[in-house]
């Protein structure tokens, strides 16, 4: 009962996530509500079962692989930071970001990071077995930006 969402997410954490992922203040709060509603165990992390409880994800042919993409190597729990980091790949590239300085770290939702995410969905044992040149050639022709972006509101 009560305002779990705003009390458990500290301001410093929110700022760090904002810098790392580029989501806005309100978007992060909304996504935190979503994270806590999926977290049935109420321990601040999501397990694979928490994801599999979403029916639309369970019937997705790539459902299991997408779920795996959230969990770091060998771990069974993902915290909010990890959750946001993976979601950040799907943030559309905004106009004011396109001309950012080249020297800074690459944003999570850059074109090449989006491609990297899609690549990881194929590379199950994470050993680069798919020929990368081939993959890039095919994907060059595809509108990666539109296909790998979700319209987050405001």
């Amino acid at each position, binding site marked *: *009962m*009560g*305002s*779990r*969402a*705003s009390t458990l997410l500290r301001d410093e954490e929110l700022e760090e996530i904002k810098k790392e992922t580029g989501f806005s*203040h*309100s*978007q992060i*709060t*909304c*996504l935190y*509500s*979503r994270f806590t*509603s*999926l977290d049935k165990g109420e321990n601040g992390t999501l397990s694979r079962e928490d*994801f*599999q*409880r*979403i*029916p*639309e*994800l*369970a*019937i*997705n*042919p*790539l*459902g299991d692989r*997408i779920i795996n993409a959230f969990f770091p190597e060998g771990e069974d729990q993902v915290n909010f930071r990890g959750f946001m980091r993976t*979601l950040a790949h*799907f943030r559309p590239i905004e106009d004011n970001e396109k001309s950012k300085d080249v020297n800074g770290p690459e944003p999570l939702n850059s074109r090449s990071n989006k491609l990297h*995410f*899609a690549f990881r*969905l*194929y590379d199950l044992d994470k050993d680069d077995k798919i020929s990368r040149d081939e*993959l890039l050639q*095919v*994907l060059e022709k*595809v509108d*990666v930006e539109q*296909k*790998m*972006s*979700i*319209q*987050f*509101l*405001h």
Partner: protein
Amino acid sequence: MEGADLAGKILSTWLTLVLGLILLPSAFGVSLGISEIYMKILVKTLEWATLRIEKGAEKESVLKNSASVGIIQRDESPMEKGLSGLRGRDFELSDVFYFSKKGLEAIVEDEVTQRFSSEELVSWNLLTRTNINFQYISPRLTMVWVLGVIVRYCVLLPLRVTLAFFGISLLVIGTTLVGQLPDSRLKNWLSELVHLTCCRICVRSLSGTIHYHNKQYRPQKGGICVANHTSPIDVLILTTDGCYAMVGQVHGGLMGVIQRAMVKACPHVWFERSEMKDRHLVTKRLKEHIADKKKLPILIFPEGTCINNTSVMMFKKGSFEIGGTIHPVAIKYNPQFGDAFWNSSKYNMVSYLLRMMTSWAIVCDVWYMPPMTKEEGEDAVQFANRVKSAIAVQGGLTELPWDGGLKRAKVKDTFKEEQQKNYSKMIVGNGSLNL
């Protein structure tokens, strides 16, 4: 002893007040207008609170609750368009984009899991339980909130508990007494009287304000009444305006006592737990019930579980195979005054009732709809979907094809296989191209 005297006097004054002002009038279906005044004051207070919150939000640029708008704008393109191919084109590595996007969209916001928790309000209604994103605005608002807490917990709660106690005891005693009589017109009339009276008292115990629409379509004897399910209170709301034969499992405890008492006065259809599994037995008994035109209409909730009153989920076809006339009823609660949804995984029955009794009020609309029957060439599933659409449209609810059982169970593998089949059909095509 003075203390005991005083306590005794307070108790007797309290009881007289309750009896005189609430119990007796509601027993006769008469209203003294007290609850109307209460509702008017409540509405004015909530409107004032909403204005204050909005003004405060602008001043401090506090986050607005965009629950009604959603987190993302979903890309609703179907599989064919999303994969940007004609039928029978080859598999491409980029196909993974469509599925991963769909999957991530579902993780951020999906249609099903949100139906199993309470609806988020657009503007706060001064109850702690609905306070998700609203922050401290002004001292006046906090004072009103404190006043609200006092009124709800110290004035309304004892009143409502007293009423509920009277209502349930009267029901049990009344139906047991009526049950002693031999079967006759008198017995039926008395049993209806007892049911209606006690239900009215119980509705008062929740400060229920119910609007019935289209009373000319009220379910008739020998028919089946079908409604969307939000909480056990649905039963109370429907039986205040007419008598129904209930269908359900035999429970233990207080529910069991009530069930056993009710069945003495009029024939409800209670099943043992083991019998519920036998679909043929259930259908047979229900068919026998409606064949007797003198028996009351059966009340069934085809969703099978409580949904949060924002949508209607899959109707199980069992009720639609019995035959007979279906009388659909749509029930829509107004969440501003109190959230009626029973989240059975979070709250048990007692805490749920306590939450009900400490809300402002239960306000809902009930629409009776014209009867429907199965048409030629229509099977039970199609009929069920037709009734479901009608109820969803009438009540202003979203319609979902998903099964309410997903609250507890996992999706069946057959649904996943269907998606895989659709995708492979696109790649392989009819087998005539690309060979």
